[in-house]
């Protein structure tokens, strides 16, 4: 079995290439594979009929106990024969039907892929494996419906079918997951009905599974995708949308009937939905003029009846299910193929334009006749037996059965009339007004329908054969207990026969007075409004409206709104969090604040206020600088000289940068008068929440001994007295590595944004062209460079270090660049700043990697003692930091001034 599936996969993959190689015979070659499978299945019919099963199991996902578990029993054999038998005829048919099509190879591929999925679906004995194939059939159907992809309606129909069956599939997945969870197994054949039905989740399981099956088998609210799917080429309609895929839903119902069926809820749901679908389908069918759509609606009607029959769960009902399934697959596939042939030959499928075709297409006519008789349920065709059993099965249900039987008589009479339209109206009578002169079609086009239609006749006439070999075991697989199967054409004068006679006479009446019937039906205007595609379109429109609304709530394109939302979330989180924790704030100590600290804090706040409010550019820059200065002072007062020095350097470089960039920009307009208070409120809330968060985190004494450990071990183990620096270059040097990478990347990125190629970096004019200044500042540059080296060197023990040193050196060179033009610093250093930065990074990485020598960790320090002087890799690392920060900052400033010159 697995081999068959794999062969189908292989064939699907090779089909396009094969079609290119053998454009004429590819179809016939490919049809051999399903034919082979058909024969192989036939060869097993005897043993299966004896009650044996064929099993194959390959483990797939062990952790979830999901296996590729295949099982050939009566039900799957029946379906397998239909799939492979009709399938091989369809492939052959497609070869004729789509002879000239450019993408015939792809068509074969999809068709074989579908066959694989469908065969896998019926063979699977694992719920999840079954689901895998289930979804694959939906995908294959999507591809096939949209095959004529330049037609918008085909694309729409494909999407509709995919969404409905795919959506239903997801409900099914939920149902199967629950089912597997409840039953503690994925294996279908070992599901325990009592265990499943006794569980509290059973109703949910049942509803979800039914949702999946109903959507696939086009039951009532979901039926609308099936007629639209007729946009697919005819072989697809014949195969997927009448004979096989749409039966997947009823197949699953049948498969699960032994474990889920039997309860009143199951039966009433199936019967109610099935009967309603059947009646609606038949009513809609009779209103169509396009033969293909007409057949599609009759398929809906039949699917409804099949669903209903499973729901009846009576011996006759289940036998009728199997019979009707086979009969319908045979005649409906034949009819579809024949209609395709008619379309091919005459150029139309509208029956009012057809008539008298028998003369031109006798072979097709023969096939249609046989199939239509079976469809109409006339003896001795298989369809007749199916109908007899159906009525018997329904009548077994008692009073409800009587009611349903009435509905079914109506339905079947309509189907009878529809069959008449297909055969009598099209083939007999006066010739129609064809768009082109009809002719008999080629062998691949008539062979399939004829064979299938003959099958329906033979099975009916010699009905003991299917009884023994096929129907019996299949019925046993569906029913929860043993069922006695015996088929007959003549069972005496039973109520079922009476119903049959009634059906036929009513059907005749419908056919003969169809104009009146249609007129009557046409009166139900309000009803047809609901049953069309309209609802679907309206639903989609709603969904898209909601989607657009959702999107626009977040896609406003306003940066300020985005920022405001983030800030609001932050404030709310902190506010709620603090409230939830019960406001554990640090004790109030504002009165203890020292005057200098108070002054420094006010300075920084005032500066920030200025930056927030002032209109001018220069005043903005100055205000920001002032704010930074205030903070620097605050850091000094709080005994953090390294932080303060870094802050100072950063602030000064930042101010220069700002000045350089703002120079060329217009002044900032004063604050607009607009509605400012929501913004102020949000800003206030944000600030408040952050301040409070700080107070919360400082409420208790600082836990842990990190600070003490660093203080205690800095000198002894890190060989440095400046604990902050030792942390930076040794204890937590990994942070610093990341940090210099950030600096390097940021400066490169900023420079790349400013976008001047270095080649154009000329000697251009200095920015401040005053000779006095030029000469006067020169010593300062040297002083700064010297100081930076000093800061670097002593950093390990005194305030300073790589950052501060690098920034100081950069400040010096920035002065140089401002005075002497962008190339001046390069001349002085004999290196491009970018190269300097690269070297700095390389040195830092080298220092870190040296630690790996001798099996140590990354960044493990190695020390050399020059007398009393410790020299170690952390110092080398600090040098790397220095070079990197220096080079990176200079790189940006150089690029910026070069840009100024170009501007």
């Amino acid at each position, binding site marked *: 079995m697995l081999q068959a599936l794999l062969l189908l996969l292989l064939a699907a993959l090779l089909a396009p290439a094969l079609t290119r190689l053998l454009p004429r015979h590819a179809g016939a070659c490919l049809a051999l594979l399903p034919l082979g499978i058909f024969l192989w299945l036939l060869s097993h019919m005897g043993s299966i009929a004896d009650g044996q099963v064929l099993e194959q199991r390959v483990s797939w*996902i*062990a*952790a979830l106990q999901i296996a590729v578990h295949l099982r050939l029993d009566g039900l799957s054999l029946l379906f397998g024969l239909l799939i492979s038998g009709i399938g091989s005829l369809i492939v052959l048919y497609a070869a004729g039907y789509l002879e000239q099509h450019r*993408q015939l190879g792809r068509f074969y591929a999809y068709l074989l892929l579908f066959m694989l999925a469908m065969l896998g679906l019926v063979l699977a004995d694992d719920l*999840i494996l079954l*689901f895998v194939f289930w*979804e*694959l059939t939906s*995908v294959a159907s999507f591809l096939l419906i949209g095959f004529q*992809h*330049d037609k918008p309606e085909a*694309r729409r129909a*494909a*999407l509709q079918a995919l*969404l409905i069956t795919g959506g239903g599939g997801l409900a099914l*997945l*939920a149902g199967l997951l629950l089912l597997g*969870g409840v039953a503690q197994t994925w294996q279908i054949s070992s599901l325990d009905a009592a265990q499943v039905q006794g569980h509290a989740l059973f109703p949910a399981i049942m509803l979800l599974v039914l949702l999946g099956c109903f959507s696939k088998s086009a039951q009532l609210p979901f039926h609308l995708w099936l007629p639209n799917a007729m946009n697919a080429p005819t072989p697809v309609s014949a195969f997927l949308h009448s004979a096989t895929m749409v039966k997947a839903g009823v197949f699953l119902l049948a498969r699960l009937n032994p474990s889920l069926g039997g309860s009143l809820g199951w039966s009433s749901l199936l019967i109610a939905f099935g009967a309603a679908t059947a009646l609606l389908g038949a009513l809609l069918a009779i209103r169509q003029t396009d033969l293909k759509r007409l057949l599609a609606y009759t398929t809906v009607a039949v699917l409804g009846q099949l669903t209903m029959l499973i729901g009846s769960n009576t011996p006759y009902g289940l036998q009728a299910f199997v019979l009707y399934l086979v009969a319908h697959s045979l005649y409906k596939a034949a009819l579809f193929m024949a209609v395709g042939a008619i379309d091919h030959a005459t150029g139309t499928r509208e029956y009012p334009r057809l008539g008298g075709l028998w003369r031109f297409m006798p072979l097709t006519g023969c096939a249609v006749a046989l199939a239509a008789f079976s469809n109409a349920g006339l003896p001795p065709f298989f369809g007749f037996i199916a109908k007899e059993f159906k009525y018997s099965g329904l009548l077994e249900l008692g009073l409800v059965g009587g009611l349903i039987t009435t509905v079914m008589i109506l339905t079947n009479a309509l189907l009878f009339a529809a069959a008449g339209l297909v055969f009598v109206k099209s083939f007999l009578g006066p010739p129609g007004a064809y768009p082109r002169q009809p002719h008999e079609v080629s062998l691949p086009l008539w062979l399939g329908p004829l064979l299938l239609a003959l099958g329906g006749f033979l099975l009916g006439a010699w009905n003991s054969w299917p009884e023994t070999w096929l129907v019996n075991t299949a019925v046993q697989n569906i029913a929860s207990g043993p069922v006695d199967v015996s088929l007959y054409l003549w069972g005496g004068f039973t109520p079922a026969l009476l119903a049959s006679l009634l059906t036929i006479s009513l059907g005749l009446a419908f056919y003969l007075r169809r104009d009146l019937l249609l007129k009557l039906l046409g009166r139900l205007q309000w009803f047809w409004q609901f049953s069309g595609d309209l609802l679907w379109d309206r639903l989609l429109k709603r969904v898209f409206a909601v*989607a*657009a609304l*959702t*999107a626009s709530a*977040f*896609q406003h394109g306003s940066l300020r709104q*985005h920022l405001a*939302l*983030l800030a609001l*979330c*932050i404030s709310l989180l*902190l506010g709620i969090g603090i409230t939830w*924790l019960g406001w*554990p704030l640090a004790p109030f100590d504002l009165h203890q604040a020292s005057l200098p600290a108070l002054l420094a804090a006010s300075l920084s706040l005032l500066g920030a206020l200025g930056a927030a409010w002032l209109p001018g550019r220069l005043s903005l820059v100055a205000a920001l600088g002032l704010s930074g200065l205030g903070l620097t002072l605050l850091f000094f007062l709080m005994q953090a000289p390294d932080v303060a020095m870094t802050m100072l350097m950063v602030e000064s470089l930042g101010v220069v940068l700002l000045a350089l960039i703002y120079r060329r920009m217009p002044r900032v307009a004063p604050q607009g008068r607009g509605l400012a208070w929501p913004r102020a409120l949000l800003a206030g809330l944000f600030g408040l929440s952050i301040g409070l*968060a700080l107070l919360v985190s400082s409420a*208790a004494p*600082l*836990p*842990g001994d*990190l600070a003490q450990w660093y203080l205690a071990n800095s000198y002894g183990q890190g060989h440095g007295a400046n604990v902050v620096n030792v942390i930076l270059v040794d*204890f937590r*040097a*990994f*942070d610093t590595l*990341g*940090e210099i*990478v*950030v600096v390097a*990347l*940021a400066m*490169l990125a900023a420079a*790349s944004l400013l976008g001047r*190629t270095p080649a154009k970096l000329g000697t251009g004019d200095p920015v401040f062209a005053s000779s006095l200044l030029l000469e006067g500042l020169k010593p300062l540059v040297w002083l700064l460079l010297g100081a930076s080296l000093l800061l670097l060197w002593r950093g390990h023990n005194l305030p300073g270090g790589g950052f501060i040193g690098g920034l100081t050196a950069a400040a010096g060179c920035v002065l140089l660049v401002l005075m002497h033009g962008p190339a001046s610093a390069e001349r002085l250093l004999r290196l491009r700043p970018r*190269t300097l930065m*690269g070297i700095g*990074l390389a040195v830092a*990485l080298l220092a870190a990697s040296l630690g*790996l020598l001798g099996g*140590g*960790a*990354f960044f*493990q320090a190695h020390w050399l003692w020059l007398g009393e002087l410790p020299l170690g890799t952390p110092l080398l690392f600090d040098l790397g930091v220095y070079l990197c920060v220096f080079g990176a900052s200079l790189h940006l400033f150089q690029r910026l001034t070069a840009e100024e010159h170009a501007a």
Partner: protein
Amino acid sequence: MKALLLISPVLLPLLTLVACILLRRQGAWVIRASLLGSVLLLGCAGVLLWQAAQGQVLSAQMGGWQAPYGISLVIDRLAAALIAISALIGLATLLYGLTHHGHGRLERHFHLFVHGLMAGICGAFITADLFNLYVWFEVLLIASFALISLGGGPRRLAGSLTYVALNLLATLVFLLAAGLLYGSAGTLNMGELAVQFRSGQASAGAELAVLLMLLAFAIKAALFPVFGWLPATYHVAWTPISALFAGLLTKVGVYALIRLVTLLWPEPGALHQVLLWLACASMLVGVLGAAAQTEVRRILSFHVVSQVGYMVLGLALASPLALAGAVFYLIHHIVVKANLFFIGGLAALLCGSERLAAMGGLYARAPWLALLFAIPALSLAGIPPLSGFWAKFLLVKASLDLAAWTAAAVALLTGVFTLLSMSKIWNEAFLKPHPEGEAALGNSAGLRLALACIAVLAGLTLLIGLAAGPVLDYAQASASQLLSGEAHLALLAPPAGD
């Protein structure tokens, strides 16, 4: 050797970065060095993955300083898997970029910053110190700033501005949270923090700080309601870059969320409940937003939001199976999403636009691209037997097992809408004839390498789907590793060498 291997995910990109900086003049050499670095990284990542699959946890103390005083690095299963996938996507992006484009300068910068980004991403995956995590987040952030603005253009620059402003705010929140966390918990080491939280001795301030940090991660991960920056910006970047971002960046945020939440709260609680609702909202809002879009990358961007919802759902459910689902989803999603952006870019290149209305005709003209699109697209929609199906399967099953009906329903409903979006792209860009006729379609002759990248990633998607067993085993093992926290708790024990 072990120490070198452990640090290689950060060291290799950094060395490549240095090489790119120093080789600035020699364009061809930059590319060679960059590709060599990527291949080496992928190799190391492969070894790491193999070791992690054996159950080995690599960890080290930077500088040899014991935890919590020094910075710890840990590579457990989750980290190893993510490093491997990231290395793969990084290499694929670089190769894809090679064919996608012909400018010299842009390309060299592209290589340089991609390596910066990789260093940041890998650093974030391996560190076990929260401030260090902040630093690596900054590295990847600044690299992403550079990348998103690469190439200029008014539209791209506007997008960069939005991206930079919003991410800067997020990163400041992270910094604040890290600082406050130290102030109230007295440590930055994840292991020590885990001890405090798991024993219920965490102070109020520490909880507040962690919550704030989770918010910062949620912004990075683009979780509802703070995802606005993502769909507003991803579509403006150069295609290979948006692919890289969509594949990897938000996932770093998700990773951080998973790491911290599982480490600190292995048992479900109130936080998980909140996350659950946020995850559901993300899923729904993401797919609904996507349904309203009419451009390929915008559709895909909104889907990132919805899929982040799936991953967070796994985290929120907190059962081993759910967490395994989240890990599985993470692995699957990175590959698929990056690939879809690659394909979308190629499709746009051939059609001359990425607006669906102006696309079409690819099904007839570029059948291979159509096939390669179908694989990740169906996988994203969760169609079996592709990788996305198993990811969703695990999450839905976990929700049903825990009776989280709403979550399961939302997850399934989201699947339908994802299918809708994917088939919309399929119908519009592939099936529909090109509005300007077939002649308007470009030529795919020069794009072989890009197609090859796409094919490899699509193959991986297929492989993850068909051989889901081993991946699932790995995901389950990493889930139990996450919940037990063993890798990080072991940091505090004195090193065995002493």
